């Protein structure tokens, strides 16, 4: 009995030691190198896909879907949300200020800079978070991160940045590097009863089918956001997509704009630096 319990204690201690020593230190993180490896993985896997085309998700992976999408883009389903967003953006708050007062360049053509690491707050700030902060600072109630209003606003802001390449910055701050690392870890971690990670679908199986859908590559996957999804019969934000992805693999979603999700968006946006914003988008 004594020997057995001692043995199990030793194994547990060893396991604990292995776990803690394997944790990466901030000095070993090289985001630029990682982004290059990430992009090379996809360009090598799909040599016939033009670099900018990765932002088109499943349409860069399947010719038939692409044809249908190109036809619909002449009269895109996100048009209504885009117009609503433009109107919302221009409408002043009760105190007379507007969204333009909260953003650089009046909020026009800035979407490609989000998310950024706020060194004062010590956290990743996404576009959705910044918009609600703007509302609250001006005495307005925050919008739900997963409903139409936020989707319409981000649709308009994305539209003003169409064609501009993602330009996410990671300042030389260990907290920013940690956020990048945490986002990366979230991306590759299996979760939910179905035991999928984001990578299971978007790194291991882009272009393949999951039930009736064609999977998009992880490279450029946020560039078309927010999207009008036929599945939703409506517009959805990045928050909506992250939370629904979680529940689809039977994982209880975290609160929208939780630290994990913001770090994930930071990581995915950074490794897609150089790819053009194509939002708002349309997806099956």
């Amino acid at each position: 009995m004594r020997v057995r319990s001692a043995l199990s204690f030793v194994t547990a201690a060893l396991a604990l030691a292995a776990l803690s020593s394997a944790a990466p230190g901030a000095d070993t993180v090289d985001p630029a190198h990682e982004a290059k490896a990430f992009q090379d993985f996809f360009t090598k896997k799909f040599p016939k896909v033009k670099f900018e085309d990765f932002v088109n998700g499943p349409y860069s992976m399947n010719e038939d879907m692409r044809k249908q999408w190109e036809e619909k883009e002449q009269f895109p389903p996100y048009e209504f949300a885009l117009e609503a967003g433009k109107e919302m953006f221009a409408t002043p708050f009760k105190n007379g200020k507007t969204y333009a007062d909260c953003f650089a360049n009046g909020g026009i053509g800035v979407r490609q800079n989000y998310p950024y690491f706020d060194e004062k707050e010590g956290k990743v700030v996404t576009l959705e978070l910044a918009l609600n902060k703007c509302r609250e600072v001006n005495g307005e109630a925050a919008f739900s991160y997963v409903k139409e209003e936020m989707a319409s606003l981000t649709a308009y802001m994305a539209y003003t940045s169409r064609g501009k390449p993602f330009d996410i910055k990671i300042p030389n701050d260990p907290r920013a590097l940690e956020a990048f690392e945490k986002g990366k870890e979230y991306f590759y971690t299996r979760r939910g009863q179905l035991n999928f990670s984001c990578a299971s679908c978007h790194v291991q199986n882009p272009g393949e089918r999951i039930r009736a859908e064609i999977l998009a590559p992880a490279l450029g996957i946020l560039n078309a956001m927010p999207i009008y999804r036929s599945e939703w019969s409506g517009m959805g934000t990045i928050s909506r997509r992250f939370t629904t992805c979680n529940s689809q693999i039977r994982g209880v979603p975290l609160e929208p704009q939780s630290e994990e999700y913001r770090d994930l968006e930071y990581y995915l946006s950074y490794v897609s630096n150089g790819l053009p914003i194509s939002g708002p988008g349309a997806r099956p």
Partner: protein
Amino acid sequence: MSDRRRLAMKKIMFAAIMVVAAAMPARAASEADFKAAFAAADSAEKDAGRLRNQWTTTEAALTAAKKAAEAGNFDQAVKSAQEAEALAKASIFQATSEKERWKDLEIR
């Protein structure tokens, strides 16, 4: 009836009763049993919550357990609670092992 026959019949009846008794559960679950099983499942699910890795199916089993208990069906309630505990523990195992295993999928 002869004594021998009477004894044989008694043996058969005894055997029959034993078979019926064996087929029944040891005893029906009580509300106390349910409360204990639910507490264990709930505690495991809270641990999974701290690890930020709960499963929707665990939540569904917990809800089913509560519903069955409310209807007075403590056998089912205990079963669902035990299932929830197993699922919660599996999700804890997943979260713990993934702390290292995620690197297997990483693009380098």
